[in-house]
């Protein structure tokens, strides 16, 4: 009876952290996002030498310079992410399709950046729903990309109708394998997926490094790069160069909807959610938790693999060293922000996509380092993880679910 405790009480800080995040209310999330921007603004001020100079002259000019800098930063971010409303308006009035396309380019580019976030966010959210902390999306993206790329340049003479789905599938399979392994290790040996997925990230990273530098290297290139994928494997692009907006975005949306459907409308999703929330009771109720765990992890990996596939088939068309993207790690944050709801992921992926794509313009125009955006995102997550901060700042009434659960666990005596 005592030994049982050790094996059953595997509630570690991760699950507590996760619970805290997934229980926060919409108000908290929105306030956290706002607070994140405020903190980002403060940081911009604190890191800007001009502000200090201005404060040297007079307090008032210091304040106004601070304001100017923050306004400039965020407006560049906005312009970079969504485009210039004035230009868009003018373009629409002129009716010239080339102009319209140009005006919408920043926004479309943001959607291009959003696409991998959609896949990985949904992948991580699915894992969470099954009670799995998939830190391995990064590695799954990488193997998905290289596998899809390989299918993209190896199979010749296929019609795009076959080649594209085939390459996507190969990418998904590779990612799925990368997810399957930690899932399998978990149910077989009890190895925690956080550890194994991190390890799988390294395996993926160095495997790709090796593949790109010798067996899959394009011999005509100086630096290690894979060959170009064939035209027949290109994901359809809706607009002429340089707009890269491609079909992957809609595939990603479809995947999000599909996963939502699976989770909430099917018996299999019922099992995933049950196992994620209480594996003991799920087992008692006759669910095969081994199967659910492995399958959910593999599916999560497959979806993350599709992120890599859609990047290589839709955007880069070949893989070079530079693909290690951070998408996998950001996706943990955005999945949590979406409370692991696949449809919520559509919104948070968009938020992250816009921030990421806008931040480049922000760096160019306002000179604010791109890292401010990472910090801003981190603040948002931090605020959501520690809702007490937000409650205190905004004097929200306390209605913490966590406490409710401690007190209602009344007589499940632990032996």
């Amino acid at each position: 009876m005592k030994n049982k405790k050790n094996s059953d009480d595997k509630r570690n800080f991760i699950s507590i952290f996760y619970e805290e995040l997934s229980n926060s209310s919409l108000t908290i999330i929105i306030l956290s996002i706002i607070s994140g921007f405020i903190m980002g603004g403060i940081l911009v001020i604190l890191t800007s030498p001009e502000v200090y100079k201005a404060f040297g002259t007079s307090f008032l000019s210091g304040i106004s310079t601070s304001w100017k800098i923050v306004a400039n930063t965020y407006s560049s971010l906005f312009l970079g992410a969504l485009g210039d409303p004035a230009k868009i308006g003018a373009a629409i009035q002129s009716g010239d399709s080339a102009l319209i396309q140009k005006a919408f380019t920043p926004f479309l580019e943001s959607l291009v950046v959003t696409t991998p976030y959609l896949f990985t966010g949904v992948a991580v959210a699915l894992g969470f729903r099954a009670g799995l902390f998939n830190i391995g999306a990064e590695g799954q993206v990488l193997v998905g990309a290289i596998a899809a790329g390989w299918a993209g340049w190896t199979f010749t003479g296929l019609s795009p109708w076959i080649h594209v789905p085939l390459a996507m599938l190969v990418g998904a399979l590779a990612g799925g394998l990368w997810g399957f392994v930690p899932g399998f290790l978990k149910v077989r040996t009890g190895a925690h997926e956080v550890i194994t997925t991190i390890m799988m990230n390294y395996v993926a990273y160095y495997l790709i490094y090796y593949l790109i530098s010798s067996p899959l290297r394009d011999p005509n290139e100086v630096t290690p790069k894979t060959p170009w994928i064939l035209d027949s494997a290109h994901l359809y692009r809706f607009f002429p160069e340089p707009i890269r907006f491609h079909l992957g975005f809609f595939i990603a949306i479809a995947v999000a909807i599909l996963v939502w459907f699976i989770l909430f409308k099917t018996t299999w999703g019922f099992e995933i959610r049950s196992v994620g929330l209480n594996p003991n009771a799920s087992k008692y109720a006759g669910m095969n938790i081994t199967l659910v765990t492995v399958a959910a992890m593999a599916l999560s990996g497959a979806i993350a693999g599709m992120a890599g596939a859609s990047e290589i088939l839709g955007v880069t068309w070949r893989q070079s060293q530079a693909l290690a993207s951070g998408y996998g790690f950001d996706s943990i944050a955005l999945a949590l922000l979406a409370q692991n709801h696949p449809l919520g992921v559509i919104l948070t992926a968009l938020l992250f996509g816009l921030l990421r794509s806008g931040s480049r313009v922000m760096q160019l125009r306002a000179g604010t380092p791109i890292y401010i955006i990472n910090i801003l995102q981190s603040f948002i997550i931090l605020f959501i993880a520690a809702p007490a901060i937000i409650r205190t700042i905004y004097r929200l009434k306390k209605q913490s679910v966590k406490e409710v659960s401690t007190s209602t666990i009344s007589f499940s005596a632990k032996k």
Partner: protein
Amino acid sequence: MPPILELKGITKRFPGVLANDHIDIKLEKGEILALLGENGAGKTTLMNILYGLYKPDEGEIFINGAKVEISSPIDAIRSGIGMVHQHFMLIPVFTVTENVMLGEEYTRPGGFLDRNKAADRIRELSETYKLNVNPDDLVENLPVGLQQRVEIIKLLFRNADILIMDEPTAVLTPQEVDELFNILKKLVEKGKSIIFITHKLREVMECADRIEVIRSGKVVGATTPAEASPEKLATMMVGREVDLITDKKPGDLRETVLTVDKLCVRDFHSHVVVDDVTFELHGGEILGIAGVQGNGQTELVRALTGLKTPFSGKIIISEKDVSRSSPRRITELGSAHIPEDRQKDGLILASSIAENLVLNTYFHRPFSNGIILERLAIDENANELVRKFDIRTPGIKTLVHSLSGGNQQKVIIAREFSRPIKLLIASQPTRGLDVGSIEYIHSRIIEKRDEGCAVLLVSTELDEIMQLSDRIAVMFRGKIITIVKANAVTKEELGLIMAGVTPTINKKKIENTQAREIIT
């Protein structure tokens, strides 16, 4: 002198529920106040308010006549209020001393922990209140009763004067309950005051000085053990007459449903925990498994439900060997389980009532076509069961963790009883339930028996075993010591067998009953 604690007009609303409705309660110094009430009456909520876990919507708290604001457990502790939670807040791998010190550390100069000083204080407290706790023991090695005493020491260590205990006896053996009562008496003798929640009327009669009864969030009466009787208390709680004794007709035996043959189960350390257990269970009978907690009942049930593979031996349900079958196959053969630990094994607390009610039938029609869930059917099922089993809830979408303990149990009962079953394995089916619900569940179990279902009832409550069973098996150290006809033993005799005393009832009687069984 003002009472040590006074609650005035405490009101607490949850979405859709008025959990506490202007409650006024006084606690005098040096008394044990029993708080009685149906499941969902609002007892736990009231205590959580007192302990600072919930904020009341209205009302005031006075301690020794002075108004206090309690907005967190820290405030509560500072005001001298301590609470023993039902699930203990102890760290298993720490010693008693370390657990007790946690949050209230004694230090030596330089910031080092002073374990010895703390241990001395614990020894002293243990001495004063006759708690018998050794500060150097690891908590994980202590039985439940002692762990509870460690919790009590924790409170005393923090100089609590008011002790709140929410259903402290639910997990204790009868002996441990007696010991706890002696401790409580000792505590009030030394000037502590205690609020005590229980559903067991006998316990209330035995140890309370005063009784307050709550129903639907309101105080509906106060009395003392001298004035009250269990029947009267039951009526006050439930608001109607309650039969404390369930009637049952002799059942008529049918074919064998469950055969357990030389079953052995081993635990993680390959200790034998179920030792060569053999019995048969027929349709239309209730076999009670009596025994002190921890004598292999849990593991026996885990083996029977497919959660644990037996080491050797056979389990046969309806002529199918299920010794190595999955839980799913066993439930599909028409077996239902009420698990001992409802929150761990029986429910998904963070899911809705509706989903919990189809937890093991979701893949069947009409709840799904095997792939797609049918929300309408699931909700309809939930509405019907909530009504039929009187689950007190604002709605079927309510998450199970916001139900009161008793209503959580009803969710499980409703789920298991609402599908066609041939075998019911019920472990502690009424733990934590109020008398009204116990009456209800007992009559449903008997009804199932009368319908021809075979029932295996595992309970540490002798009264429950005696009342329901047709035959009684006593488990001791993993073995079934004896199986007797329920009407052939007295409670006292059973108690002795359970304690491992060689049966003092005359041997002949047992042999006779066994002989009779072989014939039947």
